[in-house]
């Protein structure tokens, strides 16, 4: 049997976590994790709307052009999107930082000469896919 003191301390600790969780759900932001709102897939995408995702294309010193998955630069796709939003006014600087990250992770690979950031815009109409288009929105070059 747990003593009354041990039961009381468990109730207090559990109650404190529950209160923090409820407060986070009602008023918090992701910044307060682990007491953040559980917001994955909680947004309401309108049936007729557009949304964006991002990709990076690389050209190495041998002139080869290839798609560079965010993972090779130490980020997840969704983190790349968040970083793009956070660096909207300095996207070339962001690409330079991502290139540094790539070099640290893959020092053995052919150096990169150029990076191109692309925005892919997907359109929905009536809840159905209506179109996709991609455009380059930033460049980084070592020249």
């Amino acid at each position, binding site marked *: *049997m*747990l003593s009354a003191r041990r*039961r009381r301390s*468990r*109730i207090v600790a*559990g109650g404190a*976590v*529950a209160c923090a*969780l409820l407060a986070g*759900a*009602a008023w918090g932001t*992701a*910044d*307060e*994790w*682990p007491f*953040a*709102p*559980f*917001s*994955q*897939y*909680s*947004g*309401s*995408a*309108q*049936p007729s*709307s557009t*949304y964006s*995702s991002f990709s990076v294309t690389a050209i190495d010193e041998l002139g080869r052009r290839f798609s560079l998955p965010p*993972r090779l*630069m*130490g*980020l*997840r796709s*969704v*983190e790349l*999107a*968040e*970083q793009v939003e*956070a660096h909207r006014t300095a996207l070339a600087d*962001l690409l330079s*930082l991502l290139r*540094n*990250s790539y070099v*640290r*992770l893959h020092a053995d690979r052919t150096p990169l000469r150029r990076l191109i950031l692309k925005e892919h815009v*997907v359109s*929905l109409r*009536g*809840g*159905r*896919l209506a179109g996709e288009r991609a455009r380059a929105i930033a460049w980084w070059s070592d020249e």
Partner: protein
Amino acid sequence: MDEIVNIAGATRAWLFAAMPRGRIAVLRTAIYLFVVLDVVYMRAWVADHGTVPASLWHPLMFERVLYLPVPTPGFVTVVKVMLVVAALAAASGRWPRFAGTAVFLLYLEWQFIAFSYGKVDHDRFALLVALAVLPTAGLARWGDKERSQAAGWALRLIMIAVVAVYFMSVIAKIRYGGLDWVSSATAMRAVLRRGTMFSDPFRNLPWVFVFFQYVTFAFELGSPLMLARGRIGRTYALIALGFHTMNLFAIGIMFWPQVVCLGAFFRLERLHLPAGLAWLSPRARPAEVEPARLSRGVRAG
């Protein structure tokens, strides 16, 4: 007044209802081995964050308050190695308090490293609660039917955390998406981004995804039923497993930590280690074993 006292007493009895130590033992093995798998294989990308330039690091509130350091390759490697060693020690069931507490703190830091570059995932909450409470449950052995209040409280907290993840998700949907969420194109958008061979054929049938959203909303809203005693609770936990499997087929995502924690709802105490591996499971010291008659007052699980 009497009613309030009665409700408080019933809540306390429910929270501390004795449950079998054997369930703790199995859950401990599963959860700590999952941590190893998660760190080394399933989310190995977390370690790559050590190479990302510090200017892309956006520390979360608790990292700022606790002055946690910027992840570097060396720091991330140290955390990773210590975490794996501690998790393997804890999975053995020995030193549950020391090894378990170390795993909780290191895994928390591991998640801070994971979530400080622009994206926070919410599928880790129940696992973190499990890691926080498992060290309090004392020694436990596979197949041990002996019930204890310490085991009961730990299991109850894990169950509540699992339910909270579902229920708080529906709260977030109402907060961010409003009641319109159920008829929105959120699931369609997820399928367009992460569709699978099972969900892609439905891209031209938006009503299928709207129906899926109604099901999700109803499932999450009804999730407290999982805490009901006996068959109702276990059936709802099975429905939860089905829900996660459906997500896996539709968008290729499985909320593994949540699935592992769902084990708290099932009679894992019926599982035994194969005879050759029995030595792996520690024996509870006599002083820690509660006489069955003392813990028969309230039964659960």
